[in-house]
């Protein structure tokens, strides 16, 4: 168990670090998806295989692809040095991030969680389904949340289309031409 945990933890953290420091944006995206995979592995270890499936499908599958598309549409090909990809907040952010990380880690470790072990909470998919929809013993609010999430997704889709469409009749080149003239 420990071995699996260690391996997955290393995968997650090293990839996360890679996302941050890699000079190539595509490399960052790929590191990110590796990190997602690691987290999916964690979900399996945590007796939530359904969730692991969701994670892989959505994150590794859809999100990574969307991000890669975004990269494709917005990047100019050039070689970058490390200094040009980092802004001036490097050290301050490092301190703050370390601080937050340390703080949360310490708080969490100090806390007495009782004598719990994995699998103590409910792990069946049926319970997951019931919880998600707010039926049975689950708080009823979940049903609302579920519906709201659906609406949110719809809105997001529409918004994304609206925000990113080109203005009617104007191409990308004509926009550049306008800006150069003005």
């Amino acid at each position, binding site marked *: 168990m420990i071995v699996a945990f260690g391996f997955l933890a290393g995968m997650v953290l090293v990839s996360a670090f890679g996302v*941050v420091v890699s000079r190539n*944006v595509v490399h960052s995206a790929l590191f990110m998806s590796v990190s997602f995979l690691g*987290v999916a592995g964690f979900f399996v270890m*945590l007796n939530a295989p359904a969730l692991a499936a969701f994670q892989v499908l959505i994150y590794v599958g859809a999100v990574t692809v969307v991000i890669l598309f975004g990269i494709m549409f917005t990047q100019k090909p050039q070689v970058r040095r490390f200094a040009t990809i980092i802004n001036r907040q490097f050290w301050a952010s490092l301190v703050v991030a370390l601080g937050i990380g340390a703080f949360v880690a310490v708080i969490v470790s100090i806390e007495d969680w009782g004598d719990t072990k994995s699998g103590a*909470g409910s792990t069946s998919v049926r319970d997951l389904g019931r919880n998600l929809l707010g039926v049975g013993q689950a708080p009823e609010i979940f049903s609302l949340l579920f519906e709201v999430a659906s609406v949110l997704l719809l*809105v997001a889709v529409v918004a994304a289309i609206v925000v990113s469409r080109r203005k009617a009749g104007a191409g990308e080149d004509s926009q550049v031409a306008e800006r150069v003239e003005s």
Partner: protein
Amino acid sequence: MPPQLQQGVDFLNAEIPLEFYLVVGAIMFAIGAWGALIRRNAVVVFMCVELMINAVNLSLVAFSDYLPQANGEGTSYAILVIAIAAAEIAVGLAIVLAVFRSRRTVNVDEINTMKG
């Protein structure tokens, strides 16, 4: 079996305490935060935000698994979070695209009209 080997096997088969998962989540969150603050490329900032969200998901599911008083709701929360994160990615990248079209750059620190 010799005692040391037994110890080693016991060690390898030991339960993983809850704190381990939480600490990993914390560190992942910190790394994500760090990256969100220092990278100039807006898309990379997005990726780091996703890292942070995943860290939180990890903690949620860990709680749901370890604490019976959570009634397994953590996993449901995690699913909802995933859904919302996906929506956010969609809209966010659309905005990045729009900004790129008007300013030809996705460097966050060049978009500073809020200055002063």
